[in-house]
């Protein structure tokens, strides 16, 4: 609403101004009312979070997220219908809630690998008296989910749970589902940074689909470039000033830093309310978000003299290429 200043009488100008204000207020009221109605209609996004063969550290990492915090998401944006660590229901009631929730549209988040060696290696609970294994759970819910987010390195590539000799026969979620799904969003990291998960989930909530992914189904926003590319200690690398022991505040490459092969935004994003990160703690990156973690990125710490010793034994300093 424009109020032409050319109006002659000051009285009239005031009247017109007051009218404009009233109209504006009315407009906002209508808008507010309709958005409240929309909000009522818009269902909260339904999320099922399965913990399988792993350490349940990704849900703990999610608790560490801020802006938005998990509690804010729970109160206003998502319906978390199953999570072993946090739900109030227990036993049969918890499992009933899980299966009932899967009757409607839901997004499935999975942490942990899937133990395949024997069904009995990982039972997530009993449904109607029958034990449900990790493998059965991923088959059942993986088929029904509208989208799947694999959270952490175990869920995405097997990770620690599948490290040699892989006693539990653990495989990634994608492998457990084989050809069933090609659209699993892969959030690597041990654990997954809360922002990587919340950002991905927010994209589903606001835009109805996954964020832009690379050829490995990782969101490019978070996994686009290597740690080495953005490392705060890059200048030490360029000047060949290398730390010889942990605790030194220079380039960690000679200690076996896996920054050059690991793609995450750790150096710029940082962890736990953006406070610090492993290189900031004067230790090398161990490649926990690399597909071959941990076997391909071990040994995690190599002192230069030991590295030389290993070369003599015919072993090399660098991880083998991705399997």
């Amino acid at each position, binding site marked *: 609403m424009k109020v032409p200043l050319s109006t002659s009488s000051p009285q009239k100008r005031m009247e017109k101004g007051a009218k404009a204000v009233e109209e504006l207020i009315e407009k906002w009221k209508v808008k507010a009312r309709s958005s409240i109605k929309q909000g009522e209609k818009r269902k909260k996004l*339904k999320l099922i979070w399965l*913990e399988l*063969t792993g*350490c*349940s*550290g990704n*849900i*703990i*990492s999610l*608790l*560490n997220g801020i802006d938005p915090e*998990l*509690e804010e998401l*729970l109160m206003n944006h998502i*319906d978390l219908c199953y999570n*072993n*660590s946090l*739900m*109030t*229901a*227990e*036993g*049969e*009631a918890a499992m009933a*809630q899980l299966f009932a*929730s899967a009757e409607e549209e839901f997004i499935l988040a999975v942490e942990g690998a899937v133990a395949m060696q*024997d*069904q*009995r*290696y*990982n*039972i*997530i*609970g009993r449904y109607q008296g*029958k*034990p449900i294994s990790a493998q059965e759970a991923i088959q059942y819910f993986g088929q029904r989910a509208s989208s799947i987010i694999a959270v952490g390195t175990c869920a995405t590539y097997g990770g*620690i*749970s599948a*490290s*040699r000799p*892989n*006693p*539990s026969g*653990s495989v990634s979620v994608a492998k457990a589902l084989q050809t069933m799904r090609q659209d699993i969003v892969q959030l690597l990291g041990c*654990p997954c940074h809360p922002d990587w998960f919340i950002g991905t989930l927010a994209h589903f909530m606001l835009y109805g689909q996954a964020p832009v992914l690379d050829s490995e189904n990782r969101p490019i926003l978070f996994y686009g470039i290597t740690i080495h590319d953005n490392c705060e200690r890059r200048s030490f690398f360029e000047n060949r000033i290398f730390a010889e022991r*942990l*605790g030194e505040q220079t380039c960690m490459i000679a200690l076996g830093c896996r920054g050059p092969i690991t793609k995450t935004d750790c150096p710029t994003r940082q*962890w*736990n309310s953006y*406070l*610090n990160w*492993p290189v900031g*703690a004067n*230790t090398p990156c161990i490649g926990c978000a690399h597909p071959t973690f*941990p076997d391909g990125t*071990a*040994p*995690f*710490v190599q002192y230069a*003299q030991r590295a030389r010793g290993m070369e003599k034994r015919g072993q090399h300093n660098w991880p083998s290429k991705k399997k």
Partner: protein
Amino acid sequence: MAIQKKISPLTRMSGFLELEVQIEGHTIIEAKSSSLLFRGFELMLQGRDPLDAIYFTQRICGICSTAHSVASSLALEEALQVTVTEQGRTLRDLVHSCEFLQNHLRHFYLYTLPDFIKLPQKQCLYENSRDYRFPPKINELLVANYFQAFEISRLAHEMIAIFGGKAPHDHGIFVGGLTVHPTIDKISKFRSLLKKIKSFALEKMLHDVYTLAHYYEDYFQMGQGPGHLLSFGLFADYPEQKPHYVEEAFLPYKGEKKQVDKQKITESLTYAWYEGKVEVPMEGKTIPDLEKEKAYSWSKAPRYQGYPCEVGPLARLIISGQYPNQISMMDRTIARVLEVLQIIIVMEKLLDKVELNRAPQEVYPIPSRSKGIGLTDTTRGTLGHWLTIREAMLSHYQVITPSAWNLSPQDERGKRGPVEEALIGTRIENLDHPVEIGRIVRSFDPCISCATHVYSAKGRKRMTIL
């Protein structure tokens, strides 16, 4: 005729646990606890670089990873003959302390309290069908504190990140202590976060646990267990003002406190899905045997001098003489909250000791042959790492976690584990909603991710493969 009840999964804990009880009339006459996950960490660690144990074993557990970095560092220091400096120990203990704060805050508010309070029904995560006794106003207050605990527990992990890089699975704890240098900016941020947690603990948490105890007084009579207590000691290695908290000790039921002798720790495999009967940790093997008769858990049964021992905050407070020798579900819960304050007191003392100086780190050469044991108390109780080095590689690794002690199955003499024993004799009011079981078991703060790294997974002979 006894009826059988199975609770699986027992939620609000880390990992997968099944409880099976036999109830006659309204009383539990038999109880079995079974862990439901097997990953086989001991097998994975064989043949790895010894120093990798620190970051590797943290992945045993997502909620108490720092505990494993501490125990593995201690074991490596013994094997590598590294003497940790006072500065190194102080810094490492400070970071380990934050793990206590994080765990106890999350366990009391996010895991324990939902057994007693009605949470907002608009969230699918919360269903309310228990024996609720709080008047609406008190319930409202507790719910508000439940949500505030999300924020406060986050601060404890921020404190770990300051000196450890990130949490869970920190990088800072290492042989020699820590890798991050205590500078004034870091120390003051750490102190500031600690102060916030302290206010919350003093003003809300302490009050809340006694409110809980007031309305659920009957839980002082439930969940006693065998009454033998064990601690490997905590913050006891300082020359002056010894001990800062608790010294290692074994306190048998109605007996005298004795010093811990590592040789008296054994693991019974009679009821566990592993080959063998009884073993000592330095020679323990982890060979799964799903067809073993009578076995009902993948958790081995650790025993001290043959006794099943309760470990954790209550055991520590009783052993250190700071809590009367009374054991129950409610005493365990109160002890966990009191320990938050005890830990904060220790942390303040440690902070005063920290010098604005470098964190000591050296190049640590690996001997071709060696052995090391790392014993410490951590959040949930006694934790031990046993390792052997051959040809500069790990040739053997065994871990006995607190939850393995508390949630162990029966041993070769038929003695039940502490959680099983605590459930026997419990009166169940409503057979359709046996809330008492979950409340008692959660008071032990079970962590199956931990109990299982070695073992655990549940298997029962009659169970058909699905």
